[in-house]
């Protein structure tokens, strides 16, 4: 029941969450979110995996034992979205740096 992928999912999501919660560096927070995203993607892909299956391309592997295509499609969409989110958040970090000269989220409070 409990296999390596699931442990990896738990490890990735926990690592990502702890980075978001405990790190003050904005870049590291973005990395944390990215890591959570990877964990969730790994979860989706491993859910669709079937032991000893081939790629779900119907014409290439007719009558073969295929893994589920839908989770892979979901993962692909989710990867694209997480790319956009990462780029957007990093650009906000750039704007923050331009104003405060730091990417430490606690610095702004000290300046006031």
């Amino acid at each position, binding site marked *: 029941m409990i296999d390596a992928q699931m442990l990896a999912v738990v490890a990735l999501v926990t690592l990502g969450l702890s980075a978001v919660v405990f790190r003050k560096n904005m870049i590291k927070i973005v990395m944390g979110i990215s890591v959570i995203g990877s964990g*969730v993607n790994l979860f*989706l892909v491993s859910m669709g995996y079937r032991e000893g299956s081939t790629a779900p391309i119907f014409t290439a592997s007719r009558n073969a034992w295929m893994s589920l295509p839908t989770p892979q499609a979901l993962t692909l969409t989710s990867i694209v*979205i997480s790319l956009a989110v990462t780029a957007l958040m990093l650009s906000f970090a750039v704007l*923050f740096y331009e104003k405060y000269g730091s990417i430490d989220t606690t610095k702004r409070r000290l300046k006031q």
Partner: protein
Amino acid sequence: MAVLFYQHSAAFAVAVPLAAAFAVPLVAKLGKAARNAFVVLAVVFTQIMSWLMFQRSSAEGGFIYTLGASVPSLASPAGFPVRIVLHIDALSAFMAVISTTLAFVVSVYSFRYMKGRKSLDKYFALLLVMTAGMTGLVTTGDLFNMFVFLELLSVSSAGMIGYYGKGESAEAAFKYMTVSSIGALMVLFAAGMLYSQYNLLNIAGLADAIQFSFIDRIALVLLFAAFALKCGAVPMHMWVSDSYGEAPAPVSAFLVVASQAGLYALFRIAFTLFGGLSAAVMGWGMITLGMLSMFIGVTMAMFQKDIKRLMAYHAVSQTGYMLLGIGVGLAVLSSPVALETFGISAMEGGLFHVINHALYKGLLFLTAGAVIYRAGTRNLNNMSGLAHSMPVTTVLFIIGALSIAGLPPFNGFASKIVIYESVFMFNPLLSVIAMLVSILTLASFVKVFYSAFTGPADRSIKKAGEVPAVMWIPMGILAVLIIAFGLAPDTVMNLFVRPAVHALLNQAGYIGGVI
């Protein structure tokens, strides 16, 4: 032509604002007037489509639209919903109508308010993407698409919050994006959990197949928490004050309906997907969130000096009323007698408050925008005597403030009285706290009124005068709606709110629409 629009209203409501968003920079090459006209046209078209959806879902009791199918009303060949399905019932259409109404008001207001700012083409493009995200989120019948539209809404909202691009708004946008992307990933995680067990992503299909196993309950908690975060309920409210406060004023008004789209998703999950669970604990969870939001929101608002942060905390507090009303309905879902006596009317009050909140909170944020436009500051301590030079804005502010405080004859009273009465039958204490919160709300708005609008007029502000008509007319539309809804609550209740409540309760009908 009309039949075409009627049949494909759901697809148009999502596709048109999305396509128009990416066309805005192109149209802007023809000039600013062309761009503005194009934005208004796209928003009005989306609104007409939402009305058509509402008409059709009232007439047919909900319908589905399968994207890419030759016959859009059929989910799949074999009764197995695998395609991308938009599923519209009265509640979805109700929410779509609210969001597009605010989209219209906000875009017209923005033409003047944002005039002279840079990269306005992108501003209006993002405004339309937000509209598409909202209509998509409320019409989708698919858990994965819910995630996609949630991210679409979050990313475009974050872009709008960070519009001014200076340090603080960038920080607010960063914070918003952090919490909402984690929330969205949790939605995706839950969708994966449910998919792994039932091979379905369609909400109606899942609601039919669901067994309420341990994993399903984990998925419920993840979904519940994620959407409660999106609607800004209290333990997860920390993004609300920053994002509403730092965004341009029209965007703050629009973010109100954006968080209500999250509220819709929360109701859909609780009533449709997990409606068969009929666990009172879920209802009590929602009531607890509502009570916390109400009380903590208003107490945080009391001592704010920044006019928009103050209103943001009130938005949190008012969300509590909706959660309370709907939560009471959810808590008594399994007992037909209690549901009949007060459960349904509590839910009616809650949903009525959704539309009222969108109107008066939208109006209040826009009046705050008008004040900022003339006074040039958000700090209440630096404002004085604005009523001398801005009589129209003052009257509009008073209408909004009395409405949010729940005074007759405005619409806030109409929905709050329903909530008080029905919640009193459920648990008197909750109702008493709700009334207390209303009084504190009034106190807080009296403070804003006295410090911003009364007193000696500031000479620099007096010269500036009233805001231009193109700004106060959109606010006036909201004010007229507020008074109309306050004077004829029964009409609104029968026309919009009751069908939506019945759609929310009719889980079997929602499932039957697809399977």
